[in-house]
């Protein structure tokens, strides 16, 4: 099947009722958030906001009630995610956990892990980070060098994780590492371990400052850090299969084309009163892209709801989404005269500057463009 069809997202009445509630809530709690702050939705870390979402029942929405979830549909969750992102809400304190760590634990975790961890995520209390990348293992995740050596009652972990977003805030990390064999075994012999970052000795977290001067990612060094046997997620040696499933969760959401929404909105604001055809043509084209991306992305939600694996489809949406977002800045610069500056009193100019400094990451984080296209090519049967 070379024609990759995306399922039709169903019309979901309950989700649309929910949308009105979410919008009203966001209008209220985000009233004081400036456009520049809104543009930084991904990195906005605000435990208070996440707790409020949790109190509303808008985290862990699709999970079983016994783990603090709300047993709602993937479409209702989708509404909450897209509305919070489109509004530029600070999502950093909950969304890694809500989007991928929680679903992974639900799928592979032990009963004890599910009972102790998931309710906290659903309440917006528990912050997660992703321990995949390393200095010598980026796209080539199977080259992991971090090693957990079995000892009495658990493991001793040594190694370095890199680019770990939010590790300095996080309560837990899902660590991908080698638990047996050697680097030559590649995918075999890898596992996922749950790391309690607040209660484990031998872990050093060092900030890394991005090119725009922001601190969101970190280097996390493990030196003989002891993890108990109960830290194992899923099956020892099945880490590769599990981490691929986690990445499908990571790539499947609308954040992959909504992280620059604030720039789009400010651009429309900056163009008010314009009768330029160039501006209309550009906005028309971008709107067609956006509406289509939403349709594709809701198709992925339909696949998740049906229990299907949307790996290839999610890669397509993420690749198209990153391309769309990376074009935005240059399109805006061509339509409105501006020298980008985050300190500008013009919202458009400040947001443009923020976007300029972030845009290289869109096609890197969560799997690079080239890796995604490799996944799509595999889906086409070429490799």
């Amino acid at each position, binding site marked *: 099947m070379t024609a990759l069809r995306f399922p039709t997202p169903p019309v979901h009445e309950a989700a649309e009722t929910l949308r009105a509630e979410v919008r009203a809530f966001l209008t209220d709690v985000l009233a004081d958030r400036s456009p520049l702050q809104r543009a930084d939705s991904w990195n906005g870390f605000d435990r208070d906001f996440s707790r409020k979402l949790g109190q509303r029942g808008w985290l862990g929405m699709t999970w079983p009630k016994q783990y603090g979830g709300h047993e709602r549909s993937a479409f209702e969750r989708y509404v909450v995610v897209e509305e919070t992102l489109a509004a530029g809400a600070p999502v950093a304190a909950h969304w890694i956990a809500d989007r991928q760590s929680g679903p992974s634990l639900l799928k592979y975790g032990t009963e004890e892990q599910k009972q102790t961890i998931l309710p906290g995520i659903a309440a917006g209390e528990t912050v997660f980070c992703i321990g995949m990348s390393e200095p010598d293992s980026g796209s080539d995740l199977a080259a992991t060098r971090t090693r957990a050596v079995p000892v009495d009652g658990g493991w001793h972990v040594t190694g370095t994780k890199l680019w770990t977003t939010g590790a300095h805030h996080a309560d837990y990390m899902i660590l991908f590492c080698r638990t047996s064999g050697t680097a030559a075994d590649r995918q075999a012999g890898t596992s996922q371990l749950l790391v309690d970052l607040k209660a484990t000795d031998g872990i050093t977290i060092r900030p890394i400052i991005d090119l725009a001067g922001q601190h969101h990612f970190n280097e996390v060094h493990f030196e003989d850090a002891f993890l108990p046997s109960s830290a194992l997620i899923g099956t020892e040696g099945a880490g590769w299969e599990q981490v691929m499933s986690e990445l499908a969760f990571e790539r499947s959401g609308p954040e992959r084309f909504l992280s620059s929404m604030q720039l789009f909105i400010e651009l429309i604001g900056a163009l008010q009163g314009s009768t330029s055809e160039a501006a209309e043509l550009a906005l028309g084209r971008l709107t067609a892209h956006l509406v*289509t991306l939403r349709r594709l992305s809701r198709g992925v939600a339909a696949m998740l709801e049906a229990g299907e694996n949307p790996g290839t489809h999610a890669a*397509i949406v993420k690749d198209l989404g990153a391309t769309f977002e990376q074009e935005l800045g240059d399109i805006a610069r061509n339509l409105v005269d501006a020298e980008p500056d985050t300190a500008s009193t013009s919202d458009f100019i400040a947001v443009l500057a923020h976007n300029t400094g972030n845009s290289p990451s869109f096609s890197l984080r969560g799997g690079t463009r080239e890796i995604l296209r490799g996944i799509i090519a595999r889906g086409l049967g070429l490799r």
Partner: protein
Amino acid sequence: MELNDVGAMLADTAERLFTTHGDAIEGAGRDGGWADAAWAAIEESGLPLALVPEEHGGFGIPATEALALIRQTGRHALALPLPETIVANAALASAGLPLAEGPVGLAERANARVPWGRFANTVVVATDGGLQRHADLPVAAESTNVAGHPRDQLSIPEGNAGAAAAVPLLELGALARALQMAGALERVLELTVEHVSSRVQFGRPLAKFQAIQQELAKLAGEVAAASAAADHAADAYAVGGDLTFAVAVARTRIGEAASKSTAIAHQLHGAIGFTREHALHRFTTALWAWRDEFGTQRHWTLALGKRALSAGRDCYWPMVVAA
């Protein structure tokens, strides 16, 4: 018969007819002729009535299934005005006019370049006063599009009186082209995957080279986007949503996908794809033409841009979600 059986049966019939008569249609089209037997068989099958409600003499199948037949014509790059005839009959029925006899020349305005105008037995014209139905109109000027398909100006009688139709003819024609393009793009992807999998250079199939894989992944992304945009417009028609907006989205996004996809497909096919011998050109030349028919790509993009600009910064996102 169950309704969903009727839809499936029509799809099967269409597939059989388009395949059986494919060469004849293609041959006739290339010489500026008309595949009489093929059209007769298509008419006999009832396909032109697919989108007509049951009470007006149609099958009463869901609109999305009827529109899927138009997409199927695109998968064959069908060189006959069946898409036009399908949507024209729906328009005629909604306006309380008699259904078409023979192939329809669909004119979204009086001086339009009417697809297969010289062969049309019925001409359906949109005027300011509403829909008009004419029989056999004389040709004022013959021309062809870049796919070599007839696009003719007809001598349409003056006068603006017409019947009120449910949906503007321009939108219907544009929806048809969106669906045809989505179908054709799916075939372009399939043909390209087949080609790079079988063509060997440097001792291995082209498909094994990463540079080729990356280009095909881009092509697949464009085709997926086109497909979704076409589905979106078809759904808007089926549920009575804002068709003008959905069609504008579809034609803007699919037009871009057509440009990007045809470029990649030709690059990966090499010289053989640049010939009349190879099937690829039937799809790519049709795509190049279709992206600007029933409203140019620029027309639809501008229409959408005006909507975006007038929504303003506060109402833009709600507009996107409601689309």
